[in-house]
């Protein structure tokens, strides 16, 4: 934890209110995010229990599974989820703008610019917590290898038509969420934790209710006591007033409310199956419907507070203006969305279970680039984030006191002006450490050339040698060299990131990494049916 975030947390403890750790919004929020509050069944991995989903905060769509261990009901739930989510995705697929991309011509090997489509916007998915993102990944994994009756007439348990497609989209979103700074799939807790520091532990910060209690505490109450109530307060029946944001449910809810309701449902179903005449069947069907309705009401009650909390969190976040460079990162998300749209449309198979060596290396490299870029961009967008970097000695603000013209020692001397600056900060400068400033939105590089003693005493001045962005002629371009009196932000970190080297194609995987994966044209087969699939 950085010194400044420790300080912010201490201040939060003292004041009883969360402290802002950002002055701008560092993630892009679309106008119409799709919020998904999923619930899972205790004790059975990947068995959804229900979900609230939708783009209208007043009218969420409630999906439930009355008996989570019934595979037919589970498929029905997933089919409903696909109907709730996929139309939202598809609405963005055909609103495109022309764009250009560099591509390598497979025949000549030359890089050429090609005209392509870029989706003008992308659908955004918001879940309450980080565990929700994991659950989205799990749902994607459980669906994308399923086969529909249309794809494979022989499959014993065909999936409803759009379920595998939903699995591919959720997998793509789950994978994209691992890229630092991406905004396609976000957790409300992560968003809030990025912008505020509370006075509780980072473990407690994963509790959406407690987190909001610190950020938006009711008047007259401290964040700490509101957070404690959010975590612990129960009603007369022993149920939490602020149910967990899921996907896991509270055991007290499971034991006292959910289990009896499911049992009632099971009994009604068994007795309906045993009904011998139409009259009895009608009565028993009514019982079954009532039991179903009871489960729906229970699940609506435990998901609605979380649903409202997510929207409240989004309201709070929208009060911040969006950071200047967040748009640039959102464009990358749009490219990611467009890319996956194209892969689905061209009939590519679902994402493999595991990445091959080359894909894994590529993903790691691009995420490292994204992480470094995110850290730099947040600091450049936000003075409060920059303050943290300044406190850590990774950036400094300095006033220019003197500029002396100098030239490089080469056949064609180029300008290398020496700029003397005064700062009372303590950047970690070593011999020839590179520092960067933003000049018309692009970085200019300088190197630390040494200390100078000021004439009036005081702390030593810093001498910086400007290295680039001064034009090609012998005299620096106007405005490209700092002038005495300028106050400039210098960073020790680079503003842009260079991409890594091009890795070999997967078919060229070298012997050190096991050679090319599988045989040519190898695709993953669907999940085999196991005994556990049949209850």
């Amino acid at each position, binding site marked *: 934890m950085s*010194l400044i975030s420790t300080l912010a947390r201490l201040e939060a403890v003292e004041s009883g209110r969360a402290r802002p750790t950002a002055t701008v919004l560092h993630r892009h929020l679309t106008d119409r995010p799709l919020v998904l509050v999923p619930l899972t069944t205790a004790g059975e991995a990947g068995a959804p229990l229900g979900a609230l989903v939708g783009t209208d905060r007043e009218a969420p769509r409630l999906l439930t599974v009355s008996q989570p261990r019934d595979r037919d009901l589970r498929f029905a739930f997933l089919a409903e989820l696909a109907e709730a989510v996929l139309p939202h995705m598809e609405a963005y697929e055909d609103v495109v703008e022309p764009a250009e991309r560099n591509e390598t011509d497979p025949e000549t090997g030359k890089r050429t610019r090609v005209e392509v489509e870029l989706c003008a916007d992308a659908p955004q998915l918001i879940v309450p917590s980080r565990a929700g993102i994991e659950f989205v990944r799990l749902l994607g994994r459980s669906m994308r290898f399923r086969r529909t009756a249309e794809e494979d007439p022989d499959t014993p348990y065909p999936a409803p038509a759009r379920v595998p497609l939903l699995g591919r989209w959720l997998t793509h979103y789950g994978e994209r969420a*691992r890229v*630092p700074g991406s905004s396609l799939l976000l957790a409300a807790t992560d968003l809030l934790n990025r912008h505020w520091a509370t006075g509780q532990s980072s473990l407690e910060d994963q509790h959406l209710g407690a987190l909001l209690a610190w950020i938006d505490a009711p008047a007259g109450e401290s964040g700490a006591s509101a957070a404690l109530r959010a975590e612990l307060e129960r009603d007369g029946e022993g149920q939490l007033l602020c149910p967990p944001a899921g996907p896991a449910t509270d055991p007290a809810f499971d034991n006292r409310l959910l289990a009896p309701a499911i049992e009632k449902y099971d009994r009604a179903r068994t007795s309906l199956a045993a009904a011998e005449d139409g009259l009895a069947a009608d009565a028993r069907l009514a019982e079954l419907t009532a039991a179903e309705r009871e489960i729906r009401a229970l699940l609506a009650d435990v998901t609605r507070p979380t649903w409202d909390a997510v929207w409240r969190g989004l309201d709070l976040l929208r009060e911040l203006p969006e950071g200047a460079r967040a748009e640039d990162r959102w464009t990358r998300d749009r490219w990611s969305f467009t890319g996956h749209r194209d892969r689905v449309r061209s009939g590519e198979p679902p994402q493999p279970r*595991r*990445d*091959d*060596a*080359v894909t*894994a*290396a590529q*993903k*790691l*490299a691009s*995420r*490292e680039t*994204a*992480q*470094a870029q995110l850290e730099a961009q947040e600091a450049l967008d936000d003075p409060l984030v920059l303050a943290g970097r300044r406190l*850590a*000695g990774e950036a400094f603000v300095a006033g220019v006191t003197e500029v002396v013209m100098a030239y490089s020692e080469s056949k064609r001397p180029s300008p290398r002006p020496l700029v003397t600056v005064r700062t009372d900060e*303590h950047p*970690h400068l070593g011999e*020839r450490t590179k520092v960067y400033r933003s000049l018309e939105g692009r970085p200019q590089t300088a190197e630390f050339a040494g200390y100078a003693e000021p004439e009036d005493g005081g702390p030593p001045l810093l001498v910086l040698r400007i*290295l680039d962005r001064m034009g090609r002629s012998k005299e620096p371009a106007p405005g490209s060299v700092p002038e005495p009196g300028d106050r400039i932000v210098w960073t020790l970190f680079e503003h842009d990131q260079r991409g*890594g*080297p*091009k*890795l*070999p194609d997967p078919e*060229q*995987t*070298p*012997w*050190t*990494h*096991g050679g090319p994966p599988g045989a040519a044209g190898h695709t993953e087969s669907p999940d085999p049916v196991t005994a556990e699939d049949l209850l």
Partner: protein
Amino acid sequence: MTAVFDPGAQAARATDAILADTLGGTERGIVVDSPPGAGKSTLVVRAALELAAAGHPLMVVAQTNAQVDDLVVRLAEKDPGLPVGRLHSNDTDPYDKVLDGLANVRKSAKASDLAGLDVVISTAAKWAHVKNVEPWGHAIVDEAYQMRSDALLAVAGLFERALFVGDPGQLDPFSIVGADQWAGLSYDPSASAVSTLLAHNPRLPQHRLPVSWRLPASAAPLVSDAFYPYTPFRSGTDHGDRRLSFGVASDGSAPDRVLDEAADSGWGLLELPARHTPRTDPEAVRAVALVVRRLLDRGGAATSERSPDPVPVTADRVAVGTAHRDQAAAVRAALAELGVTGVAVDTANRLQGREFDVTVVLHPLSGRPDATAFHLETGRLCVLASRHRHACIVVCRAGVTELLDEHPSTEPVQLGVTVKFPDGWEANHAVLAHLAEHRVRWPG
């Protein structure tokens, strides 16, 4: 009757076996594990010269530009006539200026300019950008345990077969983003190049250098037991071969007493009172700076097998090691305040592969309220405790033993990942138990 141990002969036998496999073996790869200061660079230079002499064009992959330049200089020293290519980046000052004075070293940013030279050397990062060249028959990969698997993936297409040399006990490579998703895969891109190589090619010959020429007889047993329990090594010198002495007698202060203890025994622990502190603990930082200042003031002189006469321990023969960069910066500032210049102050990552007469270490766990995986990492402590030829002085707050007991390792177990042994917890305890015998309390 016990045979007299001859470290030179034992090391020579190991080297001969390695060279025989490199020049005449049939496997595509050879792995050589080298403990600290066991002559890894010497081996790399010798293997390069022999391969070149046998008419095999060779590429050498090192991890940093400093390592590359150092290898080029060593090669030129051994064989000034050998045509060597230094492939470098397009940055300003991409290589050490010393190379400009070497007649047979050609430097270029383009691999095609260096084609046909006997040996071409560069960093893994630069090699990764080399495309469309005829693959080399042989390669040497230096510091292969510090190279990440994805870096090897990017360069492995450039060579047919390779000698991988490195120190398994030093810091593992790391990534700045989570890579748990690939944990347990044989080609986990965040793992070390050697672990991927061996996972896919388990039958490659593996060799080991058995003698540390750097570590003194006082240090080798501890470092070997604590960090290399299954692949022990010993020092090339014996007790009494090396001596550290001072021209000025002790003034009785704690820094002077810990210096005397370290000169005497090879180890010293300057223990400050227990306290939770910020990372840049001002008292501990000042203690480190004072010890260095006194070491230089008292005219330290080192006697070793290298020369019959004592050699003064000057600032460039002393290093300060820390865990974090801000700690290093704080120590540098404290040293500057005391008027000390020329002492290398850096983090464990950056001290890897370097050698000094005396090191002063700010213990990674000193003053901490918790013991995280970063601070417990075995390699970090191993690097800090194995840079010295004569003595190592550790500055630490009391209470680290209790801290360790309160924080057993809690990292999640990943399926398919080889558990590293010893873990940092165990290694830290081993080192602390040994240091406790050389403790000086301050204030005493």
